[in-house]
């Protein structure tokens, strides 16, 4: 496989250096920009496979850079944000960011997110049958099997699960899920979502209290693994 090219837009030299070493030692080609303007230029001249974008940039906010990039760039963009700024993260995800990481982050986590984002770049899945661990979901037949056994789901539970499965590995915001599953009217109230996630976990997780499929992203939404 050819080396995927990653553009890092971050103004902190230490983070830049760290990311460069971590990414290059994992066979990625790295290009760097320390301002939003430079980042957009670099991305336009030579579109990379993936962009790591810091929200706090010196010249303009990462949110603006994200919006500008998203007007023409449709590959993965992963946002780097400071811990506990959930509203920033939700806003970035709603503006089309592929994923996010909060500083300080661990390298293993960073690499996992990059791999998953790159995978999604390449395969806009055409297959009807998706598998994730012990789960098998047939989008054509609308059936779900766990360890080969058919799982009974209500219509809403199925819609929710199929949304998760189609966005495997990706953090989905509460708002996005509510809009996709319940329609536009219900976007403010997350209680139905929480209840359905609870019942869905009981049906598909081996240990609903230590979920491995539907992971809660605190203050942001859910991620299906």
């Amino acid at each position, binding site marked *: 496989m050819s080396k995927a090219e990653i553009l890092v837009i971050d103004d902190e030299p230490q983070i830049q250096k760290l990311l460069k070493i971590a990414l290059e030692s994992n066979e990625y080609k790295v290009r760097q920009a320390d301002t939003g303007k430079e980042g957009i230029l670099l991305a336009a001249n030579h579109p990379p496979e993936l962009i790591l974008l810091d929200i706090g940039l010196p010249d303009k906010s990462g949110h603006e850079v994200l919006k500008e990039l998203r007007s023409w760039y449709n590959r993965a963009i992963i946002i780097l944000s400071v811990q506990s700024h959930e509203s920033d993260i939700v806003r970035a995800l709603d503006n089309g960011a592929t994923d996010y990481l909060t500083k*300080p982050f661990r390298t293993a986590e960073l690499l996992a997110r990059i791999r998953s984002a790159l995978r999604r770049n390449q395969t806009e899945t055409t297959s009807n049958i998706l598998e994730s661990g012990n789960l098998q979901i047939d989008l054509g037949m609308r059936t779900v099997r766990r360890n080969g056994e058919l799982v009974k789901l209500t219509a809403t539970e199925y819609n929710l699960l199929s949304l998760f499965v189609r966005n495997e590995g990706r953090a989905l915001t509460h708002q996005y899920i509510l809009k996709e599953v319940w329609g536009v009217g219900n976007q403010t109230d997350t209680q139905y979502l929480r209840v359905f996630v*609870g019942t869905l976990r009981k049906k598909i997780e081996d240990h609903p*209290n230590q979920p491995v499929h539907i992971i809660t992203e*605190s203050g942001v939404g859910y991620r299906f693994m």
Partner: protein
Amino acid sequence: MPFTCDYTRLLFTKSLCFNGYFCNNSLFLRLIPINTRKLAIGIQYTASVGMILLVATGCFFFNDFLGHRVVALLLLMSVSILAMLFDILPVLLASVLSAVIWNFFFIPPVFTFHIDHAEDLLMFLLYFFIALVNAVLTFKLRDVENRARDKEEREKTIKLYDTLLNSLSHELRTPIATILGAVDTLKESKEKLSQRNQTELLNEIDKATVRLNRQVENLLNMSRLESGMLRPNLDWCDVNELIHSVVEKCVPTHKPVIEFKSNENLPLFKLDVGLIEQVLQNLIYNAIQYTPEDATITIEAADIGNICRILISDRGKGFPEAEMESVFQKFYRLPNSKAGGSGLGLSIVKGFVEAHHGKVTLRNNTFGGAEFVIEIPTETSFINNLRNE
């Protein structure tokens, strides 16, 4: 500038009271005149002139009954009241205005500035003098009082900062020293170090960084509380799930068993998930610190009529009765407690729970160990009882 200064004072008072340092009302009472004095200067001028005009008009109607000398005393009293409340310039304006009004409308012959009797002239000059001196003296007195109070508060702040710096410098420097030391060793004696020692040093750096991060997080949370800008961002929260996830985060590095059984009848509560997560983390972390390795920590969650109650009890030594009040204070640490800990954790717990209008209490279990009880009044949702759509 006066605004900033006053704001800081208010904040400071608030933070001290928040921590139970001294919550007597005298401080707040004394703040009242300060605040009035800081009213916009325009309002002060208007109020001064208005009050003098009002008193003068009132007196004018009863002039026959009162006599102009009593009127002078009444006007002098109004000027004195203004002097207690306002800045010097509006008060001076009021005293001059009152003297002029008194002369023009009350001293015979009325409606002229002319004064007939020598006695009245003397009295007018005396009035003028006393009113001005009154204004200046009251102002100076207040100024001195303010300065003394500022000094006193500054001393208290310095004392608080000393405590802060002592506990923080230890808490922050220890991990930094670990990191620097380990890095130096790794850099300089790379060849001599065994593979195992290298890994060990790297693990120490890892642990120290996590510890540093936790302290910084605590400090940031504390400053969020101190700023008074903390607004819980309420959303529906599955408390069972939240507790499980916090427990899972705590377990791998620590020995005591943490026992939590989901309460299946628990409704959803409207809480700020981030804040409550921090509260649970701090309490569990605290329990782990003080519980022997072979003992258990139990957590329970319940709904008591729209109150979300979470119990966390450990099998440590418990708290001495005399210290129970103090443990939630900022930077407070039990006497003889082991090294580590900045004394911020529990005060953040209290602050965050109170931001939800809830309360956190501490009691000793009958079988030994301490039990923290969090009770937060909040909206609940029972829709998990409604099966399906």
